[in-house]
């Protein structure tokens, strides 16, 4: 079964839950409603042969509404076919998505990572703990409103954090639509102005 066949079958079966189907450079993406993630995921696994969950990721559309979005990358080993499911997550303060960890066990750690980095909770997850940061760390570092240098925090006896001294140094991207060389010059000293012109003139 090709990816296009799978999309057609899904569209027939879940006409009300599929908001958009798109194809870009041979990759098929379906935007679906968050309530039907489990239903569609189960159908993909059992009926369409997507036996492998490649990855789960999440997006932060900061400033947009709804703010968060989940992305599931499915793969069928038998057919060599890839399919992407996307679902926006309602709620800015307490985003909740359904867990698919009972369908693909690999989702367990992926969802923990999303929870740890983005702060989306998963309903039905068997063991929703942080996976990279430690229990008690108060922030979600991959959210867009979290600063690159971090924020100070302290969990006694476990770990502490401090804000890293960026000092306008080489790790700060210059806000411009120029090429990478301009946006992130290899050499820049602390205190140099964040002006792209200077680096344009030099390069």
């Amino acid at each position, binding site marked *: 079964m090709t990816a296009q066949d799978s999309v057609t079958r899904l569209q027939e079966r879940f006409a009300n839950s599929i908001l958009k189907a798109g194809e870009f450079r041979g990759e098929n993406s379906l935007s679906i409603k968050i309530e039907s993630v489990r239903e569609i995921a189960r159908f993909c696994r059992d009926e369409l042969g997507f036996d492998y969950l490649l990855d789960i990721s999440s997006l932060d559309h900061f400033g947009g509404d709804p703010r968060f979005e989940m992305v599931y990358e499915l793969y069928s080993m038998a057919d060599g076919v890839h399919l992407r499911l996307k679902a926006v997550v309602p709620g800015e303060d307490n985003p909740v998505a359904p867990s698919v960890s009972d369908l693909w066990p690999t989702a367990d750690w992926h969802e923990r990572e999303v929870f740890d980095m983005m702060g989306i909770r998963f309903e039905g997850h068997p063991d929703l703990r942080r996976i*990279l*940061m*430690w229990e008690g760390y108060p*922030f979600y*570092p991959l959210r867009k409103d*979290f*600063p*690159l*240098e*971090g*924020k100070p925090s302290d969990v006694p*006896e*476990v*770990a*502490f*954090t*401090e804000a*890293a*001294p*960026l000092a306008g*140094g080489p*790790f700060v991207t210059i806000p411009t639509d120029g090429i990478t060389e301009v946006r992130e010059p290899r050499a820049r000293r602390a205190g140099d102005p964040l002006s792209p012109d200077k680096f344009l003139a030099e390069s």
Partner: protein
Amino acid sequence: MSQPSPVAYDSKIEGNVIFTRVDAAINWMRSNSLWPMPMGLACCAIELMAASSSRYDISRFGAEVMRFSPRQSDVMIVAGTVTYKMALAVKRIWDQMPEPKWCIAMGACASSGGMYRSYAVLQGIDHLLPVDVYISGCPPRPEALLDGLMKLQKKIMGEHALEDQKRSLVDAL
């Protein structure tokens, strides 16, 4: 039958007696048998391993006995990125090492956080422990580590074995 030596001393005794200061003797022993605590946290640890392999052979400097127990180590070689999650564990192992002890910060990450100006990485292990030798590089070559080790040996040779390294003991006496 061997002839008695024509020189008028007993080589069996005289050759085995050396006069020196106790400082020099203790420092000489300490600096030539530095047992490292390998704190291999990231890519730099690979170069640390290479330094103990036959090509670079860190045992030429008496530091090949990597001890995985802090109780038996003299020098902690912090080789790699110290994340905040790991930082207090490193500190704890350092505290478990008996005096006298030294610390080598190997590589950019251990010295300053390296390229990780980020929320997750301690910006240099010297925020938590006193560092004796910093080695630059990302990663430093094994030769650089050996050079750092020799610098540390020189440093130890210049110390007062008891006064500098066992200050609390000296004070107690």
